[in-house]
């Protein structure tokens, strides 16, 4: 359907060494998150004041934080929330945005216009503030942050997908399909979607990176995850007071976020090159 | 009096460096441009005619293209390796007119700015003087209000108008050589004739030698004194214009002449097959698959010039042998 055999896709993707490396790294982190209960050496929330601020080694591979909790275990469990929420927000906004974007772009007319005005209002407004307002209204907590982000992000997808669909809708093979008697619905699924999908995959991969950053930003401000649940942004916030004595408290989660986001960006760029080539 | 040779191209070979492979695009092309004369270069897509123009101007980047062979302008070898020297020649001694005028102008600058920046690159003049030179030059192209045109942006002018400005920019330094890469292809038929007429008049006035590239036989017949036919990177046939139209020798030239529906109703005698793509360069004669009188040894043919009688050279095995050539076999 994508017009490119999966094996051809793989053979081209392998050429991008960096992207393959990042892919393994991302998969490793995801696996760490999923199998956290088995992999994590200790219980992430068990407080042992005696053992606070231990260096790495021994029972605590990465040492302990100011409450004696094992950093490595908290990082592994934190993956579930940080990555999980980013995936959740991305997938929800992607599906809603794609559905609305494709139909409004293809149908055109008043609905399309109305939607664009709505997009203008939402998107010409800093998402951070809107999410803050929503959190302020619904109260902090992870679910509210996710809802807040979805409310803002799906419109970003609508605008992007609408422009993609419009560019394809103008192309001659769509009118050729009309002449050949294909119904609107079939045109959307058989002609427009396959040509939009590649760019969509690239966009959502790149978007994942920025969502992780935003999400950790909110929990850093204390709106997202409430202590003691482990989350990368929150861990950086907790570690900020010990910047002099135990800088690694902040270093590990920050570095992990950076590496994950770099990986998503690299994979996104590589996908863009591979999927573009497929057409020429 | 013999015409003085302005530009002499000997054995020009250009190859594209693509993924550690060298794909030869222009192969052993030789021709010379005489003062006040027009050499017409005919060819279809992928035959290397545009690349030939760009290589003469030294516009091919060194890391992606390999250019060999000698190109002499007024007896002096063109310094392609010295970027600064060749840049100074471009636009002053060797000028170019592009195919699609609308996309050749920067949409954010006015037409006048394009003209004056070129003038000020080649002449030490103030902005005002450059403006005057430009207006005088545009008047030569019988443009009604040059000042108004100078102040307008490219998207406000029609293709024909922009092409006239391009010709003015090309000829204001009285260059020795003018290279025109399909100047009228993107214009309407009615405008095409006017542009060609003005180009011919101005060229006569400035005595410039001209290389006119086109895929339209009508334009070549109208303008060219000498004609070269390119196919698969080679100049397969070269002769004075009247000679090549009356008795084309190479099978490709003959096929090309017949495939134009010049107000006839009877079935066209068609060249089967498709022009070879740039990437797939086979051994021997590139016209082998499409040629009706192709023979086994055409594949080994090293494309040397064969029959060269009285300025009419051709590269085809048909004319290498002694025996009488059977014209009808491949007409």
């Amino acid at each position, binding site marked *: 359907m994508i017009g490119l055999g999966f094996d051809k896709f793989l053979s081209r993707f392998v050429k991008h060494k960096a992207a393959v490396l990042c892919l393994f790294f991302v998969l490793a982190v995801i696996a760490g998150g999923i199998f956290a209960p088995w992999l994590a050496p200790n219980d992430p929330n068990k407080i042992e004041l005696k053992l606070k601020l231990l260096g790495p080694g021994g029972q605590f591979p990465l040492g302990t934080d100011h409450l004696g909790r094992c950093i490595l275990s908290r990082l592994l469990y934190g993956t579930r929330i940080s990555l999980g929420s980013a995936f959740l927000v991305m997938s929800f906004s992607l599906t809603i945005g794609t559905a609305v974007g494709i139909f409004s772009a293809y149908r055109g007319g008043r609905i399309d216009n109305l939607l664009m*005005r709505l997009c203008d*209002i*939402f*998107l*010409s*407004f*800093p998402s*951070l*503030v809107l999410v*803050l*307002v*929503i*959190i*302020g*209204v619904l109260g902090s907590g992870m679910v509210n942050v996710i809802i807040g982000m979805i409310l803002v992000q799906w419109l970003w997808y609508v605008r992007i997908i609408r422009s993609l669909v419009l560019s394809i809708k103008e192309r001659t093979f769509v009118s050729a399909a009309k002449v050949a008697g294909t119904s609107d619905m079939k045109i959307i699924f058989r002609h427009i979607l396959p040509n939009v999908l590649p760019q969509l995959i690239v966009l959502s991969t790149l978007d994942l*990176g920025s969502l992780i*950053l935003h999400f*950790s*930003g909110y929990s*850093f*401000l204390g*709106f997202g995850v409430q202590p003691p649940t482990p989350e990368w*942004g929150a861990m950086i916030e907790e570690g*900020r007071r010990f*910047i002099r004595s135990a*800088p690694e408290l*902040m270093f590990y*989660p*920050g570095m992990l*976020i*950076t*590496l994950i*986001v770099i990986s998503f*960006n690299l994979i996104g760029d590589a996908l863009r090159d591979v999927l573009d080539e497929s057409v020429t | 009096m013999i015409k003085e040779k302005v530009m002499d191209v000997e054995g020009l070979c250009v190859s594209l460096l693509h993924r550690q492979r060298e794909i030869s695009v222009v192969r052993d092309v030789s021709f010379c441009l005489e003062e006040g004369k027009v050499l017409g270069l005919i060819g279809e897509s992928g035959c290397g005619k545009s690349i030939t123009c760009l290589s003469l*101007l030294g*516009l091919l980047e060194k890391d992606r293209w390999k250019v060999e062979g000698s190109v002499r302008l007024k007896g002096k070898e063109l310094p392609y390796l010295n970027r600064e020297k060749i*840049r*100074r*020649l*471009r*636009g*002053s001694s060797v*000028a*170019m007119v*592009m195919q699609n005028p609308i*996309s*050749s*102008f*920067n*949409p*954010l*600058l006015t037409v006048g700015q394009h003209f004056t*920046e*070129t003038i000020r*690159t080649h002449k030490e003049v103030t902005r005002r003087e450059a403006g005057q030179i430009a207006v005088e030059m545009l008047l030569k192209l019988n443009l009604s209000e040059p000042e108004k045109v100078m102040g307008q*942006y490219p*998207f*406000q*002018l*029609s293709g024909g108008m922009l092409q006239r400005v391009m010709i003015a920019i090309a000829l204001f330094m009285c260059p020795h050589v003018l290279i025109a890469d399909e100047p009228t292809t993107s214009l309407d038929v009615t405008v095409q004739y006017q542009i060609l007429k003005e180009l011919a008049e101005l060229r006569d006035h400035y005595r410039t030698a001209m290389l006119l590239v086109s895929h339209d036989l009508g334009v070549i017949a109208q303008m060219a004194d000498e004609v070269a036919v390119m196919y698969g990177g080679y100049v397969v046939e070269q002769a004075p214009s009247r000679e090549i139209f009356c008795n084309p020798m190479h099978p490709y030239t003959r096929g090309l002449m017949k495939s134009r529906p010049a107000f006839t109703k009877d079935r066209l005698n068609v060249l089967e097959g498709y022009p070879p793509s740039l990437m797939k360069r086979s051994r021997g004669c590139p016209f082998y698959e499409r040629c009706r009188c192709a023979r086994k040894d055409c594949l080994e043919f090293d494309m040397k010039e064969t029959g060269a009688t009285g300025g009419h050279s051709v590269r085809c095995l048909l004319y290498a042998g002694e025996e009488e050539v059977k014209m009808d076999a491949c007409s």
Partner: protein
Amino acid sequence: MRAYIIKRLISLVPVVFGITILTFILIHMVPVDPAHAYMTATNTPPTERAVAAVRAEFGLDRPLPEQYFTWLGKALRLDLGKSYVSQEPVLEELKHSFPSTLLLTLAAVGWLILLALPLGFLSAVFKDSIVDHLSRAFTFVAASAPPFWLGFLLIELFALKLGLLPVMGKGSWQHLILPSLTLALNYAASYTRLLRSGILENLKQPFILYARARGLKQKLVIGKHALKNALLPVVNAFGMSFGYMLAGSVIVENIFAWPGLGRLITESIFNRDYPMIQGYVALMAVVFVLSNLLADIASAIIDPRIRIGDDRVGV
């Protein structure tokens, strides 16, 4: 040109109203009654009678649209009501802390221009050279690292280890360097990439080939033709980014204890201080709309097609 600006202004008015209406609805969708929020903020006992009194005082019992229009009427006369927490008029609070946030954002814009323009330009001109690889590494890290984490790294390095710059707080211009850099790093990375790909894309265009064919110097070909075209998307994107940076200062102010709007809005959100939130959002909307307008005007100056419009219509 003037007509264009006026029309553009008119078109932005509905956007501002849209945003304020949106916030108003959001606030009033809340399960918690604003009166209770006020009571808790001023920790007076929420007795039946006191709540009714507060509702009457703030006019909360009247239907929602009416409340919005009263708020709007007063807002147009710059009276944004009183903050629950500090009892000060919202406008004063905003007036007090907005300048320092604006200063921070403008300094960040300064960093942006200082970093993104040269880096983007050089990495495009010297493609695949050392400069290009270095700038790409910088853009990847700066674009991917969480801004607040970067902030702490900067503090660790410049303030604590080297002791060159003050750690936090507002004072002389040295205090401004680190926070504005932290705020700008993320955007500097994406603008470097945007400018670089813009220039490289434009270098493939036919008008660059024609410029070279006319014998123009390489400096002119890239510096004038390619750069000017590449700046168009950068200016357009900047209209949006200025607003995002202004909002993004919330985090940076939190790290560097910078007395700006950021801290004000975080506290008012914790305390459910609705008039303050509403005022903040209105201010942000106006600033956002103005920065978009400036970006549009700048792109109209650069691109005549926006200013004059396409005369030659391809049928």
